[in-house]
């Protein structure tokens, strides 16, 4: 069995900016940006935009918090995109959102549950692990 990597050494590569259109899913959309740009691994360096509703989780059981819009503004996101040994790509995104009254909420964005409302701007910086084979 492969030993899990605890510390990964690497460098930053290319930087991509994307505007994702309405009615696309936020998490899947960011994964598609990586596919379009050929990034296997990336970190989110900036993200702002709006969602129809926000579907977040704060628990490992997958239970949902639904923040009703439209629109729910995304204030900021911390996150990464990883490609595994089977070439499956997955974005893990955690962030702060504000509803139509400005009330804030936060959690992990659930794939398939966060439809973009007007636009979503995201900046991704490619992560190039140096010792992946170790």
């Amino acid at each position, binding site marked *: 069995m492969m030993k899990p990597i605890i510390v990964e050494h690497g460098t*930053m*590569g*290319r*930087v*991509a*900016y*994307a*505007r*994702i*259109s*309405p*009615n*696309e*899913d936020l998490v899947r*959309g960011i994964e*598609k*940006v990586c596919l*379009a*740009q050929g990034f296997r691994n990336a970190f989110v*360096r*900036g*993200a*702002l*935009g*709006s969602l*129809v*509703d926000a*579907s977040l989780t704060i628990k490992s059981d997958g239970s949902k918090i639904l923040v009703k*819009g*439209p*629109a729910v*503004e*995304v*204030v*900021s*996101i911390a996150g990464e995109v990883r490609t595994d040994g089977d070439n499956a790509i997955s974005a893990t995104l955690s962030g*702060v*959102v*504000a*509803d*139509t*009254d*400005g*009330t*804030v909420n936060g959690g992990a964005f659930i794939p*398939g*549950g*966060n*439809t973009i*409302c*007007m*636009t979503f*701007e995201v*900046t991704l*910086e490619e992560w190039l692990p140096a010792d992946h084979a170790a």
Partner: protein
Amino acid sequence: MLRNSQSDERARAMAHPGRFNPIRIQSEHSDTAGHFRVVLQPGKSLHDALVHPLRQVGVTSASTTVLGGVFSYLEYCVAPPDPRKEAVIRYSDPIIAGASYLVFGNATLGRSSEDNPMVHCHAAVRREDGVVMGGHIIPEKTIVGTDPISVLVTSFEGFELRQMYDPETNIPLFQPVASI
């Protein structure tokens, strides 16, 4: 019936007023990113404190993270449904937050439809009344407090951000375009 089971639920979407663009993701990349640290100067607007120093180093398109700090005055707005139905949502009238602590936020720098520098900023703020809120910050009206505030800038090369009319949503918004 399986179709109605909870696992088959789909997230709500919107019917936008205009013709849709078959290209759902507009993206551009630079081979390397430029990184800058900008210190927002006291008394200046968020817009000027970001735009002017970056222009001096030749940066006109960038993605930035505004680290926490005190603003002597802050205005923001939220995004409820458009009562005029011209778009699915419309920014509310400005809400005066007063002297506020900006917890953190993201700001994108590009060029407006009129070819002026434009900053699009979303942030979480603790308002003067103590309530923590989030929304779209109005950079021209928001004034840096007595202490400077750090901003991490990731700049783009080979493409730029331009505010252009988007027929689908019927509003102008930032889109990446390759530099000529």
